[in-house]
């Protein structure tokens, strides 16, 4: 697997960060000085690059920089800002119990659905644009949740592994989900690598990826990570059916349709596991984390809604029914 190339800068912080990473000297004080002032997609891209050092690294970057103390400091500042923004949008639903009520709550709070648009109305170019924009997320599907494994109690750990084992193909690399997405992209003539599509990735997609990596990498946020997982799985099965039918309508190749049909069935299982066995086990072992389960679930829906609106906006589509 070749490591990806670095993206292009999107503002002063990424200018500074990318130049320093390429220079290869472990001198990041300039980046550290710029970090507190960074905003918008510049901050989002910088955080995405720093997180990515923990996944696959970059062709031009020394692997040792993953644990450079100055870069970890930059990451911490950017994450602090991201977490504060996400928490400011969230109010804990009152009088609900996560395991019993989260499916109903998701039904009431799910936002704009790109799958509905793809199902009936999207054209081919919009779908290709969507695949490119999602690639950054789907090409490492499930990896952010794997950071959690050593941080959970015995029951939650076993339950998460039962789910993740299926995400990773039940031992068969040909069935591994992010590989199925790569095969689907390739079958459409898209290079299955995220560095081929940086230009198509809106800041909202960077933020989805960043939020997921942040809650995965910070043990403190393990409750939010599992809440996010539950909401993600619980909003996948039915939309995946719509995606598959929309892709068939537009004549997309079987490999890509197959990625979505696999998720119809897989996520009908995973949503039950994520809520009942994984989050249920976490609540039995660490009941004080229930607020963060809700925070993670809320954040998942909120960021997907923002991403969906951004995509419809750039296609000039007025809103689709939620």
């Amino acid at each position: 697997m070749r490591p990806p190339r670095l993206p292009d800068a999107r503002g002063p912080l990424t200018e500074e960060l990318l130049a320093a990473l390429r220079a290869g000297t472990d001198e990041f004080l300039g980046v550290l000085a710029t970090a507190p002032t960074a905003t918008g997609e510049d901050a989002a891209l910088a955080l995405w690059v720093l997180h990515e050092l923990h996944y696959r690294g970059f062709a031009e970057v020394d692997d040792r920089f993953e644990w450079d103390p100055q870069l970890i400091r930059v990451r911490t500042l950017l994450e602090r800002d991201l977490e504060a923004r996400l928490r400011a949008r969230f109010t804990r639903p009152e009088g609900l119990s996560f395991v019993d009520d989260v499916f109903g709550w998701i039904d009431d709070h799910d936002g704009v659905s790109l799958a509905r648009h793809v199902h009936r109305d999207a054209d081919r170019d919009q779908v290709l644009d969507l695949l490119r924009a999602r690639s950054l997320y789907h090409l490492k599907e499930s990896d952010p949740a794997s950071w959690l494994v050593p941080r959970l109690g015995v029951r939650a750990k076993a339950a998460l592994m039962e789910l993740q084992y299926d995400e990773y193909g039940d031992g068969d690399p040909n069935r591994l989900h992010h590989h199925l997405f790569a095969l689907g992209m390739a079958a459409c003539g898209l290079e299955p690598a995220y560095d081929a599509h940086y230009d198509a990735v809106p800041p909202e997609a960077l933020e989805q990826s960043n939020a997921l990596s942040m809650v995965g990498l910070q043990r403190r946020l393990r409750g939010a990570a599992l809440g996010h997982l539950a909401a993600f799985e619980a909003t996948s099965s039915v939309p995946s059916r719509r995606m598959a039918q929309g892709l068939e309508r537009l004549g997309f190749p079987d490999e890509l349709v197959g990625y979505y049909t696999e998720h119809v069935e897989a996520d009908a299982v995973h949503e039950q596991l994520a809520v009942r066995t994984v989050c249920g086990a976490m609540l039995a072992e660490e009941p004080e984390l229930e607020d963060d389960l809700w925070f993670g679930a809320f954040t998942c829906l909120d960021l997907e809604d923002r991403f969906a609106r951004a995509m419809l906006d750039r296609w000039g589509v007025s809103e689709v029914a939620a």
Partner: protein
Amino acid sequence: MRCFEHPDVILCPGGPMLLRGQHAVEDADGLPHETTRPVTAVCRCDKSASYPWCDGTHKSLPPRLRPA
């Protein structure tokens, strides 16, 4: 050390039956379907388009039509 519960079958309120392990599930027409995952969701609402597996359709049914 405590012994944790780890049932072979979990009935999800309003939703599918989770089935752990490898099994052949016979549908209403007598056709066997092999499970392919460590855990499988078997439809209990009879409305799945992937019958006998659950496809999440139960969630769009009015509560009184969902399985107990």
